[in-house]
């Protein structure tokens, strides 16, 4: 009975894997794996942008491309298994966020399949690229390093009196570590002081904010997966304390942050899709240097500004987009 059951399971797995291989060959299309580390609007936009970018280059879903989409839901073990499976099944793997990119890079190192990463803040520090932005392995992608200078300049323009900016970050995310370092290095130039508070899980956020908020004049977000996923919790606390939160991209502003001068993930995803198209056309991925987000898309939320009794200066309002008027 047990042996039968076991062999049944093995056969099931075999059949499933065989059918997926057979299916890919029969249609002569590219199978592209999209492995996403977590599920929140920024990363979702990366995925949507990536598919659009490839479609613009002539690789259209259902015509000559089949997508296999998986989400690791921030589970590292699952990320590894998804990567290993995609390294076998797919012609190209798009990995979204740093942990997923590292898993995919490692899994594809043996099979030689190209990896295109996106939403990685520090490709060099994560060892996905060398100092020139290239690699001797088949990997390239795009980097979502925050335009920190622009963001600080914008905060200074909106809050001329503010002195201390609070930053909440997850100690387990290297993305956040490198961004925080950048903020700490740049803040003095705009007469700000950064007060950082590290958390280890989303459940720590309410307590961390209770300690952090009395010390600061406003908050700014990194592209921290945990903090962004718990944005509602953050906004709940900050609104109660009447302190503004600056986002790291437009989706956060739509969800209640005051303003952001951040990464526009949809276009970052599109650029990433264009890179993937180049690789599908035969360029060795390692020869393409990774691209960085241009940023500079200022956006603000006038409803939130009204609630907090903050006036967005005309110069800022003129160059930005009001997300409530879309």
């Amino acid at each position, binding site marked *: 009975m047990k042996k039968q059951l076991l062999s049944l399971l093995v056969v099931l797995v075999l059949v499933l894997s065989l059918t997926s291989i057979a299916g890919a060959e029969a249609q002569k299309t590219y199978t592209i794996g999209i492995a996403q580390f977590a599920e929140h609007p920024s990363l979702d936009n990366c995925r949507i942008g990536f598919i659009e970018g490839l479609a613009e280059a002539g690789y259209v879903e259902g015509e000559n491309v089949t997508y296999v989409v998986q989400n690791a839901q921030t589970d590292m073990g699952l990320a590894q298994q998804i990567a290993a499976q995609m390294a*076998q099944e797919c012609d190209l793997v798009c990995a979204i966020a740093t942990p997923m990119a590292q898993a995919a890079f490692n899994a594809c190192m043996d099979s030689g399949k190209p990896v295109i990463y996106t939403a990685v803040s520090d490709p060099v520090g994560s060892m996905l690229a060398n100092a020139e932005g290239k690699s001797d392995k088949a990997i390239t992608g795009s980097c979502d390093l925050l335009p920190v200078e622009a963001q600080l300049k914008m905060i200074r323009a909106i809050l001329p009196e503010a002195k201390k900016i609070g930053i909440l970050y997850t100690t*387990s995310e290297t993305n956040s570590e490198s961004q925080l370092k950048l903020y700490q290095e740049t803040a003095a130039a705009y007469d700000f002081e950064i007060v950082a508070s590290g958390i280890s899980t989303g459940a720590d956020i309410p307590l961390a904010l209770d300690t952090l908020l009395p010390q600061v004049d406003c908050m700014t977000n990194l592209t921290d997966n945990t903090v962004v996923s718990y944005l509602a919790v953050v906004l709940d606390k900050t609104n109660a304390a009447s302190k503004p939160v600056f986002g790291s991209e437009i989706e956060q502003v739509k969800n209640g942050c005051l303003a952001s001068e951040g990464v526009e993930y949809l276009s970052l995803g599109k650029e990433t899709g264009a890179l993937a198209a180049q690789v599908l056309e035969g360029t060795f991925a390692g020869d393409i240097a990774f691209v960085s987000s241009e940023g500079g898309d200022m956006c603000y939320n006038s409803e939130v500004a009204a609630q907090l009794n903050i006036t967005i200066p005309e110069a800022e309002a003129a160059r930005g987009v009001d997300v409530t008027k879309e």
Partner: protein
Amino acid sequence: MGIIIGIFEEGMIYAILALGVLITYRILDFPDLTVDSSFPLGAAVSAILTVNGMNPLLTLPIAALAGAVSGLVTGLIHVKCHVRDLLSGIITMTGLYSINLRIAGRANLPFFNMETLFDNGFTTSFPTFLQPYSKMIVVLIVLLLVKLLLDLFMKTKAGFLLRAVGDNQTVVTTLAKDSGLIKIEGLVIANALVALAGAVMAQKNRVFDISMGTGAIVFGLAAVIIGMNLFKNISFIKGTTAAIVGSIIYKACVAAALSMGLVPQDLKLITAVLFLLILVLGGVHKKKVKFRA
């Protein structure tokens, strides 16, 4: 075929962790949550030593030693400070998170361009037809070594005492042995194994990440229980074998769920249903057989 190889690679590395959980949960009857942090502890130790140029193979015993110390801490907290079993594990797990960050120096430590346990002179010397299986072979060697040593240990006097503590503490006391010490000993061995699994995992993934231990204890418990349940009527199957098979089946379930090509959100639900199916189908016969370690 690649998927099957992947299942065995992952399943057999996690099987080392499952062997650790087998000792604490099944033999000592001690729900040891230290595992969630001793797994990344082993990974952190192995990663930082590899980055600093140490032979990857040598990092394994050191990682296991670090894990043993974490088990010792949990044991001391439980036995000497009289803290409840669950809570003593939680205390060590919580503290180790910061220590792991300190050891690795950062939350995520990659070593992609270094020699690893799976990518060195030994594995590249395999004949070409064996190359796809090279990782699997290395894991198999480590796992078999661990399993055989553990099986041998269980046959010694110390091994018998370990089993006795979980079953009936009074017997141990009447033999004039300190049951507390034996519990500590079990925790030390278990967490050494868990850290070893973490080290091997870091070597395979070529990266240490602080969050890699999240859910490790859940995995270990599921693997042990699935394995024990499947083999509970077959008396000649050892507990260690059952835990290994349970671990591989766990990974096979995840792989099967992944292969079904469903919406990513449903993945965990499908995995859960597969577990349930295996447990229910595996538990058809009610005949009770004594556990063999």
